[in-house]
C-alpha cells in the first residue's frame, strides 16, 4: 500500500482537514442542529479513512498509532460514564444533567446551553471516532494468506498486543 498518485494525495490532504472540521462542528453543535456525537464521531473516523485510502496505511499509523487510538477509545467511554457518575454525585441521581439544572443554565439556542449534553456529545464523538478508526485499521492490517489451511495463524497482523 504505497498510496495513490500525487493529485489524489494533495486533494485528500486538503479535504481531510475540511471533513475533520465538519466532524468537529457536527459534534459541538449537536444539541442545536442535526447531528451529534455519533454522526460527528463517524465523520472524524472517515476523515482518517480517506487519508488511509490515499496515502496508505503506514502513513496513518504514524499519525495516529493503534495503541493511542485504543486508549482514546477507552478514555471517551470512561468520560461518558464519568459524566453519568458526576450526575449521581452532584445532582443526586445517575445521569442528572447537573450543569443545566444547577450550575450553568445558559440561554436556550446558544452554543453554551443544555448543560452536560454538549460534553456528552464530545465524549461520545471521541469514543466513536477512535473506535471506528481502530476497527478499520485492524481490518486493513489483517492480511489473509491463502497458501494453506495452516493451524498457526502467523499471517495475522498484530493488533494491539504491542502496547
Amino acid at each position: 500500500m504505497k498510496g495513490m498518485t500525487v493529485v489524489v494525495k494533495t486533494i485528500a490532504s486538503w479535504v481531510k482537514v475540511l471533513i475533520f472540521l465538519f466532524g468537529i462542528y457536527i459534534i459541538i453543535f449537536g444539541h442545536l442542529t442535526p447531528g451529534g456525537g455519533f454522526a460527528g464521531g463517524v465523520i472524524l473516523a472517515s476523515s482518517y479513512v480517506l487519508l488511509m485510502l490515499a496515502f496508505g496505511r503506514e502513513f496513518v499509523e504514524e499519525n495516529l498509532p493503534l495503541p493511542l487510538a485504543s486508549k482514546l477509545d477507552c478514555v471517551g467511554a470512561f468520560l461518558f460514564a464519568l459524566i453519568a457518575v458526576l450526575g449521581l454525585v452532584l445532582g443526586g441521581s445517575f445521569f442528572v444533567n447537573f450543569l443545566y439544572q444547577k450550575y450553568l443554565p445558559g440561554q436556550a439556542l446558544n452554543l453554551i446551553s443544555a448543560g452536560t449534553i454538549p460534553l456528552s456529545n464530545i465524549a461520545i464523538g471521541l469514543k466513536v471516532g477512535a473506535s471506528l478508526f481502530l476497527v478499520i485499521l485492524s481490518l486493513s492490517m489483517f492480511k489473509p494468506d491463502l497458501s494453506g489451511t495452516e493451524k498457526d495463524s502467523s499471517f495475522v497482523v498484530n493488533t494491539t498486543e504491542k502496547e
Partner: protein
Amino acid sequence: MIRALPAFVVIPLVSAFVLPVFGKKGKSAATLLANLATVALLVLAIASIGKSGVYEVGNWPIRVGIVLVLDGLSSLMLLVISVVSFAAMLFSARYMEQYTAKAKYLSLFMLMVGGMNGVVLSGDIFNLFVFLEIASIASYALVGFGCGNEELEASFKYMVLGSIASIFVLFGVALVYGNTGSLNMAYISKAIQGSGLNAGLGFALALFIVGFGLKAALVPFHAWLPDAHPSAPAPISAMLSGVVIKTLGVYALSRVVFNVFGISIPTGWLLIVLGLLSMVAGAFLAIGQWDLKRLMAYSSISQMGYVVLGIGLGGLIIAGGGNLAWASLAILGGLFHLVNHAVYKSLLFLTSGSVEMSTGTREMRQMGGLAEKMPVTRATCIIASASIAGIPPFSGFWSKLILVVAAIQAHFYWVAAIIVFVSLCTLIMYLKVQRYVFLGELPENLQQTKENKNSMLVAMIFLACLCVLMGLLVLVPSLKQSILDPAVQVLMDGVKYSATVMKM
C-alpha cells in the same frame, strides 16, 4: 440500597473501560481489579436481597425517563449472576494464562456481566434490548476468543442466530411502541390490559418468544448452543451455560410473557411444549456425545427445559384459573432449578476446563483413570454430577422433586413421568462421564497429568460447597422467604407488576 442500583451496571462497565489500558505488563493488576469488581458485585447482590424499589435514572419521572426496577425476581437473578461470575473470574485468573490478550478478555467478561445486570434491572423494554445486545456481543466475541477454526465457526453461527434474535426483539419493541405508544414495561402492561391483545401485539409477543427462545436455546432454536458453549474457554462456557442463557433467555422471556403481556392459556401451553421438547431432545442428544464439553452443552439444553417447563406449568395453572398454590409450587420448582442449574452446570464446565487444561483433550475416549491424578477435580465433579442427576441430599434433587410434586398435584401425570425419565437419562450421561474420565485405565500419554492449583481449585470448591448447601434454600423457611418466595411472587402477580412499579 435503591440508591446504589446503578452500581450494578456502573462497576462492571467502568472496570471494563479501564481494563484494556493495562497492557501486557499490568496483567496481574488487571486480574486483581477484575476480581475486585466481581467481589464488589457479589457483596452488592447479597445486600440487595429482600429489597425492592424503583430507581429513576436522571431524576426523570417514570413516564418520561428510564427506570431501574429491583424486585424479587431481579434480585434473585443478580445473586445468581454475581455468584457464578465471581467463581468464573477466580477460575480464569489462572486458566486464561494459556491465552494471549488477557486484559481484553477480562474487559469482555466484565462487559458481559454488566450487560446481564442491566437486562435484569431494566424496567424499560428498549433499554432491555440495548443491554441484551451488550451481553450478547461480548459473548459472541468470547466464544471466538481462541481464534481456532472451530471457535470462529461456532462464533459465527452464534452471532448470526443471535443477531436475528436481537432484530426480532427490536421489531417486537417497535410493534409494541406502535400499538401502545410507550416503552416503559409498566405502561405497556397497563395499555395492554386496557385494550386487550390485538393482532399486532400478539405478533409482537410471538417475536419476543422466538427472539428470547433463540437466546435461551430452547429446542427448535437450539442449533447454535452445542457449538458455541464447548468452543469458548472453560470459564466462559460456565458463564454462558450458567447464566447467559438464563438471563437473556428465560428471565427476559418470563418477564415479558408474565409481567408485560400477561400469561394466557396458549402461551402457557407453548412454554410447556418448548420445555418438554428441550428436556427430551437435549437429553437424548447428550447421551451420544463423546466430547466432554459438548455433552455438557446438550445437557444444558435439557436442563433449561426443566426451568421453562416449571414456569410454563405455573403460568398455565394461573391462566386456567386453577389452584394458585399449585401454580406457585410449579414456578418455585422452575426458578429453584434455574438457580441450581446455574451453580452445578458452571461447576461442571469448570471441572471440564480443569481436565482439559491438564490433559489437553476433551475427547472422553482418550481419557481415563484421572481419579488419582486429579482428586479435587474428581470430587467436585462427582458432587456436581450427583446434583444434576438428582441424587437426594444434593440441590438438584429438591428442585426436581418440587417440579414432580407440582405436576402431580395439577394432574399432569405424564409430565411428571417425563421429568423422572429425563432425570434418569441425565444420571446415565453423567455416569458415563465418571466412567470414561475418572475411572478406568490411565492412558500412557496422561501419566504426567497433574492437578491444577490455587485459584482454580478455590473456585471449584466454592461452587461445590454451594451445590451441597443449596438444598437449604427451600428447606430453611427464612431463606426461602427471603430469596425464592419474592421471585415466585413476582411471576405469580403477573400484570399486577405495572401497578406495583407505578406505586413504588
